[in-house]
C-alpha cells in the first residue's frame, strides 16, 4: 500500500509539473501581440503595484461586485492558507517555531473551511444570474470533503507520528508504511486529486490583476495625455 501511494504521489506531482510546463509553453508560443498603448510614469507604475497587492490580498475587485461572495471567498482562501501552513509540520524534520505558533489558528481554520465552502456555494447558487460550472461544483465539493475528512482525522486521532514518517519518507525517498487509518488514506487521496485539478487562476490571477491596474492608469492617458 505504501509503495502504491508513494508512486501515486510522484505521478501526481509529475503531472502537476507537466501541467505547469504545458501552460507556460502555450503562453510562450503565443503569436498574437500585445502592445502597451501609453507608457506609465514611475508613480503610476508604483501605484499599480500597490493596488495589485491590495487586490490579491483583499480581493478588492470581488468586494466591489458582491459583498457576500467576497467575505465567503476571502475567508475560504485565508482558511485554506492557514490549513496548508498547519500541515507544513508534516514536511519538516524540525518544525519551525512560527509553524508551531500557528497550529491553533490552523486548527480553527480547518473548521471554518467547510463552512466557508457551504457559504460560497449558497451565494453562487442563490444569485439572480447564477453561473456554476461542473468544474466549480467538483472543486468546491472536493475541498469540502478534504476539509471534513481532515476534521474527522483530528476528532478520531490518527497516528500523527506515523503520518509524519510516511510523508517525510516520500520526500526523502526512504519509504515508510502507511498509517493504519482508512480515513487518512481517503484524505490523502482527495488531496492528490486536488493537486491534479488545482484551478490555474491561483497562479496566474495576480498577473492579470496587475495588468488590469496598469491598464486603468493607461486609460487615463490614452486620449488625455500629450
Amino acid at each position, binding site marked *: 500500500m505504501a509503495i502504491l501511494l508513494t508512486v501515486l504521489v510522484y505521478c501526481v506531482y509529475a503531472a502537476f509539473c507537466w501541467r505547469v510546463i504545458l501552460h507556460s509553453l*502555450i*503562453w510562450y508560443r*503565443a*503569436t498574437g501581440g500585445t502592445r502597451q498603448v501609453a507608457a506609465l510614469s514611475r508613480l503610476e507604475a508604483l501605484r499599480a503595484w500597490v493596488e495589485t497587492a491590495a487586490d490579491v490580498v483583499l480581493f478588492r475587485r470581488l468586494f466591489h461586485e458582491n459583498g457576500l461572495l467576497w467575505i465567503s*471567498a476571502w475567508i475560504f482562501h485565508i482558511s485554506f492558507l492557514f490549513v496548508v501552513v498547519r500541515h507544513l509540520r508534516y514536511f519538516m524534520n524540525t518544525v519551525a517555531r512560527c509553524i508551531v505558533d500557528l497550529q491553533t489558528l490552523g486548527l480553527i481554520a480547518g473548521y471554518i473551511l467547510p463552512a466557508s465552502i457551504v457559504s460560497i456555494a449558497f451565494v453562487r447558487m442563490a444569485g439572480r444570474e447564477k*453561473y456554476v460550472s461542473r468544474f466549480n461544483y467538483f472543486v468546491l465539493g472536493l475541498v469540502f470533503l478534504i476539509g471534513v475528512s481532515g476534521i474527522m482525522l483530528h476528532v478520531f486521532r490518527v497516528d500523527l507520528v506515523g503520518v509524519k514518517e510516511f510523508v517525510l519518507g516520500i520526500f526523502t525517498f526512504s519509504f515508510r508504511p502507511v498509517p493504519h487509518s482508512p480515513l487518512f488514506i481517503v484524505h490523502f487521496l482527495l488531496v492528490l486529486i486536488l493537486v491534479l485539478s488545482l484551478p490555474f487562476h491561483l497562479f496566474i490571477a495576480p498577473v492579470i490583476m496587475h495588468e488590469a*491596474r496598469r491598464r486603468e492608469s493607461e486609460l487615463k492617458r*490614452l486620449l488625455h495625455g500629450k
Partner: protein
Amino acid sequence: MESERGQKAIIAQNRRSRDSRDAFGKTLSSLQLMELDACTQCGQCLRHCPVQDVTGNPSISPPEKIRVFREFIKATEGLKARLFGKGVDPRLIADFSKAIYECTTCGACGQNCSVGIFTQRLWPALRREMVRRGLGPFGSQAEIPDHVLKTGNPYNKPVDERFSPWFPEGMKVAEKAEIGYYAGCTGSYSAMPMVKGDVTVLDAIGDPFTMLTAEEEVCCGFPLFITGQHDLLRDLTKRLVGAYKAKGVKTLLCSCPCCVNIMSRDWPAFYGSDLPFRIRHITQFVAAAVRAGKLTFTEGMKERIIYHDPCYLSRGVGVIEEPREVLRSIPGVEVLEFEHHGLESRCCGAGGAARKTFEENASAMARLTIDEAVDKKADRLILSCPACYATVNEAMEGYEKQVRITDIMELVSGVIRRR
C-alpha cells in the same frame, strides 16, 4: 494598396476550414492566454452582461465562453491530446462561434471582472481564432472585407456618396492643416446628422481643419478588427496614417467611438510604430473650444436631456467627462444620467458588429435604453456614436415608448453662433 486579387486570396486562404485537432489559441497573445487561465468562473460578470439581460442564455455568458475555449485548448494541446486526442466536436466549435459573435463586445464583463480580464479585446481575439478556423464571421459580416476592398466602406455604398449627401454646401476644408477630421463610414452613410453636426461645429470653432477625399477616406478597420478579419488592417492603417501625415495633421479628430478606439489602441501596432499625430474624440476638442471661448451659444434650450455613454468611448478610451462638459455648457439644459453610466454604461445593442446579425437582441437592448430614458422623463436621448444612433433609431420603429434621439454634435450645431 496591394492588388485586390492578392488580398482576396489571403482572405480566402484564411477562411479555409481547419482540422478540429489544430491547436486553439494560436492567434491570441500570451497575456490573453493567461487571461483565459485567470478566470475564476465566479460568474459575477453575468450581472453586467447586456446580452444576458435580453437572452438569459448562460451558454453565451463570459465565463462559459472562457471555460469552453479552455476545453478546446486542452483537447488540442499537449502530449495526451496528440496521442489520444480526437479533436473537438465541430458542432461544439460552431456553437461556440455563434456565442462569441452574439456578444456585443461592450466590455462590461471585463470592467466588473473580479480578476480584471480585458474582455473588450479578448472577445475579438477569440473571433479572430474562429475566422482562422473558417467558423467566423457571421452572416453579412463575411462580406465586409470584400466591400472594404471595393468601396472603402463596410456597407458597399458608393464612394461618391460618402460626403456629398450631408457635407454643408460652401463649407471650406483646408488642403493642409494641423487639425484633421475623419468622418467614418457609419456616420457618413447611416448617421448623417451626426457628421454634419461635426463639421458644422468645427467650422464654427474657426481653426482650419483638413479632410481626406471620399476616395482616400477608407474604413478605419474597426468592423474588420471586431469581427476577427485582420487581413486588411495593416494596409488600411498605413494608407490612412500616410494620407493624414502628408496633409500635415497633428491632431486627428473623429466622432465615432469605434474609430477612435481602434485608432488609439490598435493603429500603432498595425502601423508598426507610434502614430505621427494624436487622436482625439471630437467632444474633447469642442469642450476645449468652449473653455477657450472659441465656441459660444446663441440661445439656450429648456430641455431635460439624458446622455448615453458609448461603450468604446467610456470603457474603451476613457472619454467620459468631456461630452457632459459640452452638454452642460448649453444654457438651460439639464443633463440626466442613466443608472449605469461612465465606465459602467450599459450597451445599447449596437456593439460588436452584432446589430445586423443578431437584430432581435440589438433591438431589445436598445429598447431597454429607450425605456430608461422615457422613465426618467428625458426630452431627448443624446448619443455620440453612429452605431448607437442607427440601432436606437431602428429600435424606436413600432415601439410604444418614444423619445427624441439626437447626436451630441447635431444638438450643439443647432445652438451655436456660426461664423
